[in-house]
Structures are given as C-alpha cells and as structure tokens.
C-alpha cells in the first residue's frame, strides 16, 4: 500500500467513525426523548390514579407492584404530597406503605448499588419524609457519597428528627465545604432546637479546629436565637482564631443584641483589619445610632474595607449621614472617598442635586456635589 492509498483509507476510517458517532448520538437522543415522554405519561397517569384515591378513597384498589420502583410514581407522589395536607396526606402515606414504595428505595440505598440509583433512593426517602425511615437516614449521614449525606440530613430535618441535630453538628469538622454548607441550611429547619448542640460543639472544638466551629457559629446567627448571645460573646473573647472571631462578630451583628456592643468595640481596635471591617458592619446592625461615634473614627482607618463598612454603617442613620457630609470636608482623602461612596449608595448625591436645583441646598449639599464633580474631573 503506497502513501496515497493509506491516506485514503485513513480518511475513510475517520469518515465512517464520525458517521457512526453521529448516528449513535441521534439514536441516543431519540431514546432519551422517548424515555422522558414515557416518564411524563406515566407520571400524569399516576397523578390521576392518586387523585381518584384522594377524592374517593377506596382501599381495595390495587395499583400494581410496579409502582414501587417507578420514578414516575415517585414524582407524581411528591407533586401531590406537596399540594395537600391533613387526611389526604395520611391517605398518601397509606398508599405508599401498602405498595412497599419506600422499602424498595430503602433497599436501593444499600452500598452495593451504583451511585445514581442510590442517590435517587436518598432523594425519595428525603422527599417522602416519613419518620419510620429516620434511623436508616441516620445511618447514611456518614455515607461515602456527599450528596447522599446531604439528602439524609435533609430527610431527617423534614421530619424534625431531633436526635439528628447532634449527629449533623458533629460532622461539621470532617465535612467538605459544600456538604457543610448544606448541613447549615438543614439545621435551620430545626430552628432554636439546634442552638445548644451548635453552641456545645463550638465550645468543645473552637480551640482545635477552625472551619467547623466557624460554620456552626454562622448557623447560630442564621437561626436567630438571641439566647446564644452570651455564649458567642464568650467565644469571641476567648478565641484567637480569626475565622472563628469573624464568624462570631457576624453572628452577633445578625442577632442584634446591644449586650454585645462592648466586646465589639474592643474588636474594632484589633490589629487585624478583617475583624475591624466585620465589626463595623455588626455595630451598625446592632445599634445604628449608638455606633455612630465609633464608626466615625472608622472612616480614617488605614484599611479601605474598614472605611467602606464604617461609612455604610453611618449611612443607616440620619445622624450618621450628617457625619458623612462632614467627612466630605475632611482633609483625609480616604475618609472623603468612603463617605462619598456611602452617600451615593443611599441616594444622597441625587437628593443634593435636586435640592440645589430647587434652591434649597445646604452647605453640605454644595460641598458634596463639588467633591463628586472634582473627582469626576480628575478621572476624566
């Protein structure tokens, strides 16, 4: 075979290969589309079947053994279960129990099965939210598949299975950031019942670990339980870990209890600009007015994040806005920039222009517009 023949054969092989590839893609797409259509048809049929049962319950009706493993039935069940409550919900539970639907998914959750059916099973168990499956879900909080751990926690939260709180919190220190974030969301479902397990976890671990306790503190803040303020103050005062301190400052800001003000005033003097910046925001969230003197000093901070957050905090209160106007006339260029940005954010620049146009401008208005225009001129 000479060189030219070899080239022709190679081109032909590539051509045939591409053709086969294209054909398999087209066939695959067609099969997939048919599967989706078939799934949708079955889902609608199941919806009708379940609706009939809810409208006129007849416990002698047999839905067939195939429904247990059919994902279309599960979709129909979840759809209808999220639409009704009360005796209709109980009726659905009875149908599910009678046909062994959850037993089928529980079996599929076993570790010998491939990931996809296992994950589908975990979603099914989480969605159906039946207390009798809580022990099984507890077993899978430590599953090797992250998404199954997430679904297990979600299912436990949906049935408000309180023994799960400690088990979920305990995993904060060993989880990947993604799973930990989803666990944080899950714990919110338990509300203030999760506060003390989280506080206890932080107390025990904050000297040995950083990310887990910080996540736990953030969750406490998001739960919004003000009973945790004293504990958070103690943690803020005793910890030397910036991640934990930042989380505590943020949580104290969200909880908004003035009791935290003295501790935060101390962290506003920290050498670490990250703590000062977070503290500026937290102080403004706790007490807009009382924080004004300390936030005004923050306008002259060497770090721009601290200046920015202090200015934003001042802009939350009328008196603070007056101090921002004063800062426009300051000799400190950093303070002027931060103040101008915060004033612009709360619409003060537009308001000043309108007052100038209406002939009712104050000296502060004139100074603000003069500063903005001189800045624009420099940039141009």
């Amino acid at each position: 075979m000479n060189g030219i023949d070899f080239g022709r054969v190679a081109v032909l092989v590539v051509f045939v290969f591409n053709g086969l590839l294209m054909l398999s893609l087209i066939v695959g797409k067609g099969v997939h589309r048919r599967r989706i259509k078939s799934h949708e048809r079955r889902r609608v049929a199941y919806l009708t079947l379940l609706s009939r049962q809810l409208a006129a319950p007849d416990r002698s009706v047999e839905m067939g053994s195939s429904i247990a493993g059919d994902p279309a039935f599960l979709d129909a069940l979840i759809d209808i279960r999220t639409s009704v409550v009360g005796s209709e919900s109980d009726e659905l539970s009875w149908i599910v129990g009678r046909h062994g639907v959850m037993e089928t998914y529980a079996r599929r959750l076993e570790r010998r099965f491939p990931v996809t059916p296992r994950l589908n099973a975990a979603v099914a168990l989480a969605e159906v939210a039946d207390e009798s499956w809580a022990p099984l879900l507890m077993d899978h909080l430590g599953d090797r598949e992250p998404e199954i751990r997430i679904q297990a926690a979600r299912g436990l939260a949906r049935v408000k299975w309180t023994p799960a709180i400690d088990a979920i919190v305990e995993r904060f220190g060993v989880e990947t950031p993604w799973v930990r974030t989803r666990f944080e969301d899950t714990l919110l479902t338990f509300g203030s019942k999760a506060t003390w397990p989280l506080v206890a976890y932080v107390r025990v671990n904050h000297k040995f670990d950083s990310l887990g306790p910080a996540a736990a503190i953030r969750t406490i803040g998001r739960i919004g339980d003000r009973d945790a303020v004293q504990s958070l103050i103690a943690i803020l005062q005793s910890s030397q870990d910036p991640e934990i301190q930042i989380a505590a400052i943020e949580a104290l800001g969200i909880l908004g209890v003035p009791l935290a003000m003295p501790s935060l005033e101390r962290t506003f003097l920290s050498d670490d600009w990250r703590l000062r910046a977070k503290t500026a925001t937290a102080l403004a969230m706790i007490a807009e007015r009382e924080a004004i003197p300390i936030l005004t000093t923050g306008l002259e901070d060497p770090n721009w994040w601290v200046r920015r957050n202090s200015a934003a905090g001042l802009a939350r209160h009328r008196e603070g806005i007056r101090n921002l106007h004063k800062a426009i006339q300051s000799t400190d260029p950093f303070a002027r920039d931060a103040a101008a940005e915060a004033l612009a954010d709360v619409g003060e620049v537009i308001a000043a222009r309108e007052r100038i146009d209406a002939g009712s401008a104050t000296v502060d208005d004139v100074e603000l517009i003069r500063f903005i225009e001189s800045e624009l001129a420099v940039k141009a």
Partner: protein
Amino acid sequence: MTDEPARKRILVADDADTITTLLDTALTAGGYQVVVARNGVETYEMGKSGDIDLVILDHLMPGLLGIEVIEKWRSEGVEVPVIVLSGVDDDTTLVSSLEVGAVDFVRKPFRLNELMARIRQRIPSGA
C-alpha cells in the same frame, strides 16, 4: 325518564398539572363539570364566556396574575364567584384577593375535603 339537572360548571385555573388533575378528578366525582385553564390570559377569556358558575384560581400564573384576572373581570362586569387557591403565604395577597372581589381564599398546601366543602357552600348542587 327524568330530566337530569344541568351540572354546575367550575373553571380550575392553575399552571400546575398536579392541582388541575387533582381538582378535576375530585370535582368530577363530586358531580361538577370541570374546565381547565393553564395561564392567566386563558383564564380571563374563559371566565368572560358567562357559562362558568365558579372559578378556582391560582394566584401566580403565567400571563396574568390571579388578582389581575379578577380585577379585569370585575371592571368588565363579570361577577363570577372566585375562590383563590394560592401558594403565596402572605396576608397582603389574601387581603388584596378579597378586596378585588374573590369570595374566598385557600392556602396551598390545602385540605381537599375543606376545599370541596367551601365549593359546595358556594354552589351546592353538584349534580
């Protein structure tokens, strides 16, 4: 041979097929005649026809919101009774719905028996 009384006609307006299937099945079993609309515009047009005895209306629908549909009907003199069935769980939606002329408001998820009782109260003769 006796004349069968005309069945009352209920318009179920919801973009979720779960709700329309459930209500269609339950209302038909209860002796009503059911028509379904899947968006706000379709609902508005069907409600204007004059042969609807009651509307079960979702609040959040594509095209027109439930409240907007009621407003348009009322401004054009269409006085068909409307029960709003809404997944939006806030008092503003409830109050606004009643203010524009809905006769009742039911929150999703709902009790089917309770909704059926409210419907029977408005139009008692199913069959």
